[in-house]
């Protein structure tokens, strides 16, 4: 019975190559739908008079600087905290960890603006942790620290998830063998586990960085919008969109190019890990 069913299924698939033209036309439509806006930004930016002046304006440069500095700090913190955490999630198996594991992924599906509201309610001056933070002299809202917090909140899951998968792909047998051969656990981790897991880790890093630099909703809620202090590139794009389309386009082009670079890096590592698995 099962076998007949399987045969019918394969027959069906092979006897309808007519799906192909439809598939191709839908794909073409989709490529246009995604590609045209991307091309449009570049074309419109190229036509824009004074694009370079916009690129070199104070607001643009400060937003760029701030985005670069904050996203790099965020990513460093994410790696320092996320790596041991991901290793723990990959190696140990318990109900509590399973629960934490799914909690980690929450910020991925949470609308960023909700993340912003949640962060205000938790770490704001009137938030749950506000009095504690106040008593040690820390107020987060409207500071560059708040920008970094928002970025970590939304970006960390991408890194932790990828790093966990990377560590899971390294069999503990290798680690055991390495240690029976007298290599210390620490050295095993650095010389064996990390290199083997590195394609995953690095692609997670690229994704997390891209997410951090494009963070918008949580930042505008939690950190506000002040040039040079909390106004990152996405916020500057929104603010500029309302008066100076040129500046807005210039910033968009920069973010677009950065995204393309991230994609290329991701493609490179995906290719590498694919080969490594051969």
């Amino acid at each position, binding site marked *: 019975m099962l076998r007949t069913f399987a045969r019918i299924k394969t027959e069906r698939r092979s006897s*309808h190559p*007519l*799906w192909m*033209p*439809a598939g191709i*036309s*839908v794909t073409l439509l989709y490529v246009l739908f995604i590609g045209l806006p991307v091309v449009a930004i570049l074309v419109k930016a190229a036509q824009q008079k004074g694009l370079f002046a916009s690129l070199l304006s104070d607001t643009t440069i400060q937003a760029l600087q701030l985005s670069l500095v904050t996203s790099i700090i965020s990513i460093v913190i994410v790696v320092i905290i996320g790596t041991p955490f991901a290793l723990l999630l990959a190696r140990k198996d318990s109900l509590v960890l399973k629960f934490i594991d799914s909690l980690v992924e929450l910020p991925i599906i949470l609308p960023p603006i909700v993340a912003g509201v949640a962060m*205000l309610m938790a770490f*704001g*001056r*009137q938030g749950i942790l506000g009095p504690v933070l106040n008593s040690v002299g820390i*107020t987060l*809202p*409207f500071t560059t620290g708040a920008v970094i917090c928002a970025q970590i909140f939304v970006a960390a899951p991408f890194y932790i998830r990828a790093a966990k998968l990377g560590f899971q792909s390294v069999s503990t047998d290798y680690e055991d063998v390495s240690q029976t051969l007298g290599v210390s656990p620490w050295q095993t981790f650095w010389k064996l586990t990390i290199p083997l897991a590195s394609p995953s880790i690095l692609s997670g890093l690229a994704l997390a960085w891209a997410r951090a630099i494009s963070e918008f909703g949580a930042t*505008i809620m939690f*950190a*506000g*919008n*002040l*040039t040079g*202090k*909390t106004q990152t590139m996405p916020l500057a794009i*929104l*603010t500029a*969109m*309302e*008066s100076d*389309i040129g500046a807005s386009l210039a910033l968009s082009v920069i973010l677009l190019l950065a995204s393309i670079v991230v994609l290329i890096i991701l493609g490179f590592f995906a290719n590498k890990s694919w080969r490594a698995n051969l």
Partner: protein
Amino acid sequence: MLIKILLNLLVLISLFSASCSTNSQHDNPHQDLIIFAAASLTDSFREIANEFENINDDVSVIFNFAGSQQLSTQLLHGAYADIFASADWIQMDRITQSDLSLSRPQNFASNQLVIIVPSENTSLFELSELVTPGTKVVVSHTNVPAGTYTNTIIQKLGQHPGLSESYPDKLKQTIVSEETNVRNVVQKVVLGEADAGFVYLSDTALPYVSEKVRIINIPDQYNQIANYPATILMESESKELAKGFMEFLKSSKSQNILEKYGFQKIQDP
């Protein structure tokens, strides 16, 4: 089979384009009136629209509330609306200069600015105390009408006999955020995250705001009168209905609603 799929695709596409088109009024007596209105008008305009719908059968008023500069940008880039109600003339002028306005825009209300402080704040009662180091002041970005007014007011306060000449500069040092919409300024003060915010008097008439904040008044000679102009847009497909709404906006019913929400009525010409 292929033909069938392509036919289905065609039907889907035509359905999609039909639902996208705004031109569906011909065979339907129901009319939509699309109004782009400044964020500060949110509550008063909702109430006015309810009244307007009550006296006009089969009319739905659809709103797009945002910062006036956002709305004018959207309109300049081809967004469709029947009426544009702006919080200042700068944004309205962008529309008239691009010949998007059907006729001369007209003021329908005015507003002024005040400073709000969270009620639980125990140290901030006077204008002079705004510049105490560590105070967190939130304003609107100068792209936004409220931000332009705020900026002018801060400059003018330098001439206040009770304040020092360096007051404007010191005040700018305490600004921690320039929000893209005046309602965001209100939120940050209501939440207690900011110590003070420059907002419209009308914003403080809302119950959820008045319960949570107290007001520091800005003396008239340093304040800015914010005139709210509205106009029918050239591309409107329901110009008669739009005219009706513009008339209704000046009626005593609408004017009373606006006054209830903290706006000043327009003087009859």
